[in-house]
C-alpha cells in the first residue's frame, strides 16, 4: 500500500483543542493542588516529603506548593491525601512566576498581572495569524524535546493553528526554551535571542526551565533559564505534556486565558487563578 493511502487509514486522530475540550487533556494529572482546609496540629511537616522543596508553609501557617519546582513525583499525595490532591487538566501555564504557587495568596497582585498581560498583548498583536517558534535546549534531560516534537504529530498538529517551528532565529516570533539553564548554553541562547526580531516572546518550558527542578542546585546550571533571559510564560511539568505546552504557547499569543477552563473571561480567570508570595531564583 502506498504511503499516501496508509496516511488515510485511521481517519481523523487530531485533537480539537482548544476549540473543544479534549478528554485526554482534561483527565491528565497536570499538577498538584493543596487541599484547602484549616490547618491542624496533626498536619506535621508534610513539606519534608518533597524532593525539590516545592512545598512550604507561609507566614500565615498555610501550606503552599510551587508548581514551578514540582516534578510531579506524587509523593505528597501518596503520603498525605488529606493535604494534597492530583489536579486534572493541562492548562497549567502562567504569565508570572509567582502565580505558579498554589493556592492563591490574598496579597496576590492583580495589577501586576494585568500589566504583564497588556505588555505581552502589545508584543504579539502583529502575529496572531501565523507564528514561528524557535526552540532552544538549554540543558534538558531530553524528554522535553520529545514533548515539543510531539506537537507536530497528527494528534496535536500544531500547524492547524498556524503555528510552525522554524530553524532560523531571524524568522522566529517566539523563543521556547527547555532545560535547567546549563551554563554552557548561556551564550548560544543569548546569541539566538539577539538574532531574533524584536520584540521577542520567551516561553520557559518545563519545571527544569523554571527552577532547575531536581537538577538544582548545581555548579553547571543557572537553576532555570529565568536568570539567563526575561521569561513571559512559564509552563510547569517534568516534562510538560504536549497539551500543557500548547496551552503555554496559546497563552503567550493571547489566544487563551490562564486557569483551568477555557472560555473564562479575564476577570473570572483572574479570580480563579492561584497565586502566592514566593519569588524564585538567585538573581
Amino acid at each position: 500500500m502506498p504511503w499516501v493511502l496508509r496516511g488515510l487509514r485511521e481517519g481523523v486522530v487530531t485533537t480539537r483543542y482548544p476549540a473543544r475540550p479534549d478528554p485526554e487533556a482534561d483527565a491528565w494529572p497536570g499538577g498538584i493542588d493543596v487541599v484547602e482546609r484549616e490547618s491542624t496540629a496533626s498536619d506535621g511537616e508534610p513539606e519534608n516529603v518533597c524532593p525539590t522543596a516545592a512545598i512550604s508553609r507561609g507566614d500565615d501557617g498555610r501550606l503552599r506548593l510551587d508548581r514551578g519546582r514540582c516534578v510531579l513525583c506524587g509523593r505528597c499525595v501518596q503520603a498525605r491525601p488529606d493535604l494534597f490532591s492530583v489536579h486534572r487538566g493541562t492548562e497549567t501555564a502562567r504569565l508570572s512566576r509567582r502565580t505558579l504557587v498554589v493556592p492563591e495568596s490574598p496579597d496576590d497582585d492583580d495589577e501586576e498581572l494585568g500589566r504583564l498581560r497588556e505588555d505581552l498583548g502589545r508584543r504579539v498583536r502583529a502575529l496572531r495569524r501565523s507564528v514561528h517558534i524557535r526552540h532552544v535546549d538549554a540543558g534538558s534531560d531530553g524528554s522535553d524535546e520529545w514533548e515539543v516534537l510531539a506537537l507536530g504529530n497528527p494528534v496535536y498538529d500544531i500547524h492547524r493553528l498556524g503555528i510552525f517551528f522554524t530553524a532560523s532565529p531571524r524568522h522566529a516570533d517566539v523563543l521556547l526554551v527547555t532545560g535547567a539553564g546549563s551554563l554552557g548554553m548561556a551564550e548560544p541562547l543569548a546569541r539566538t535571542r539577539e538574532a531574533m526580531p524584536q520584540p521577542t516572546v520567551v516561553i520557559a518550558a518545563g519545571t527544569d526551565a523554571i527552577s532547575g527542578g531536581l537538577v538544582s542546585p548545581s555548579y553547571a546550571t543557572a537553576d532555570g533559564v529565568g536568570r539567563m533571559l526575561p521569561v513571559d510564560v512559564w509552563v510547569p511539568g517534568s516534562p510538560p505534556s504536549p497539551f500543557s505546552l500548547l496551552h503555554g504557547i496559546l497563552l503567550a499569543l493571547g489566544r487563551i486565558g490562564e486557569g483551568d477552563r477555557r472560555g473564562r473571561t479575564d476577570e473570572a480567570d483572574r479570580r480563579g487563578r492561584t497565586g502566592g508570595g514566593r519569588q524564585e531564583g538567585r538573581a
Partner: protein
Amino acid sequence: MSAEPVTGAATAETLRDEVAARVRDGQRFAGLSAGLTPDGVDLTALLAHDGTVEPLDVRLPPMATRFASLTPLVPAAFWYERAIRDLFGLEPYGHPRPDPLLLPLEDPSAPLPRPGKPGMPDDLPPDEFALPRVVTGPGLFTIPHGPVRSGVFESVEYLVETPGEDIPRLQIRLFGKHRGIEKRFEGMTPYDAVLLAERVEGIASVAHALAFAHAVERLAGAAVPRPAALVRVLHAELERVANHLDVALKLSDAAGLAVATARFGTHKERVLRLVGALCGSRFGRGVVVPGGVTAMPRLAPIEILDRLDRLQAAVEGDARALMATPSFLDRLRGTGRLDGALARSHGALGPVGRASGFHADARVERPYDAYPHLAMTPLPPRAAGDAMDRLKVRWDEVGQSFHLIRQVVQELRESPGDGTCAAPVHVEDGRALGWAEAPQGEVLYLLRVRQGRVTRCDPRSASFHNLVLLHEVFNGDILTDFPFIEASFGLSVAGAAR
C-alpha cells in the same frame, strides 16, 4: 557484587596493562570511573565478562595530578579519560587528544567538581574558547553544526573538519549540556536519588531508575516482589518501543517521508499515552523505587492487552511499508558503517553494537527483575553495521519487546500478587554496581552509599559510551548522510553530557 574493591592494582600503569590484557582476552571494556575518597582518588575500570561486571581499582595518592592513560592500549577509554580530566583535574598522560569534553574552563586553577568530595563547588561556567574550535592548516576548514540545532533537537555541537581530500573528521562538543548531575546525586537519600536518575537521560528514565535501584538493592540485599519485577519489565519494554519508534520517525523525517513521519509519530504518541495511563507519567517516571515499584498499573491487564494488539498491528504494518520504500532504503544502505571489529573492541552497546554483530545485552548477560523467567525471542543475526541494519535491529527488538510485554501482562493477570509493591530496603554502607538495558544499550551505575546517603554516583549511559563512535563512521558524503547517521544511533546528548 561485593561491596568493596575486588581487585586492586598498584599503579595506574598496572591497571592500564591489566585492562588491556583482559580486553585482548575478550572481556568487554564497560567504562572508567573516578571518585574522590578521604584517602585519595579511586580510579575504577569496569570489565564485563562471564555474567558479571568486575570493577578493577587503583587508588591514586591525594596529591596526584596525573595518571597513565589507558587510551593508547584501550581506545574505548578515549572519552572517559577526558571526562575525568575535566571533573578531577587529573592529566591522563599519553592520551592522544586530551581536550576538554564536559567542562572547558578558562581558569585551569578553578576548584573543580571532583565528584565524591563533600560540598558543591561554585558555579563553573564553561569557556567555549578554551577548546580549539577551528583547526587551521593548508586546505583545512571546519564546518560547525550547533550547538543550537536546526529543528527541535537536543543541543550539541558537531564540528566537521575537512582536511582536503581526506575523509572528514568529526569533533563532538558536549559541554553545552553538562548539568553537573554527578555532584547533584551526592547527599541524597536513595529515594530522592532514583528520581534524579530518571532525569539523567530523560528518554530512558525507566532504565536509569532501574540501574540505580539495582545498585541500591544489591547494597541492601533486598529482593523485589515478583509483581513489582513484572511491572518494571512492562515499563522498560514500553520505553524501548517508544524510543525505537522515535528513531523510525526521525529517519523518515530525514528522508522527507511526510506520511511515514506522521504515522510513526502517532504510534509513538499512543505508546506514551499508554505509559501515561498506566502510571500518570508519559515517561514512566515515579514507577521504580528501591525495593520495587510505587504502585501497580492503573489499567487492567485485559485493557493493556487490547491496546497492545492494536498498537502492534499498526506498528508492524507501517514498519513493513517503510522497509519496502526504495528511496528510503537507498539512504540507509551502507550509510555510517561501523566496522564489526571496532564494535567488538570498543564494546559498542545496544542496537549500535548489535547491528555490527556485537551483542552486549544486560538482559541476557546479567538478567534482572523478571527477565530470568521470561522467554526472549532470539534476534536474527545482523552485521552490516550500517544505518539500515541498525534500523532492522530496532524492528527486531520491537517485536521482542511486544512478546515480553505480553508475557508480563499475562502473568500479572493470572497472579496479581497481594498488592505488595516494594520490599523494605535497609541500605548498608558500601559500593555496588547496578545495570539495566536501556533502548540505547546498557546503563551502568557505580554507587557509593554512607549512612543512608549517596556519597558518589557515576551514571554511565550507553549514550556516553556509544556517541564517541560517531567519529568513526563517516565514509561517504558527511553533510547529507549526517542526519541519517545521527538518528540511526538513537542516542541522547543529556545522558552523555550529564
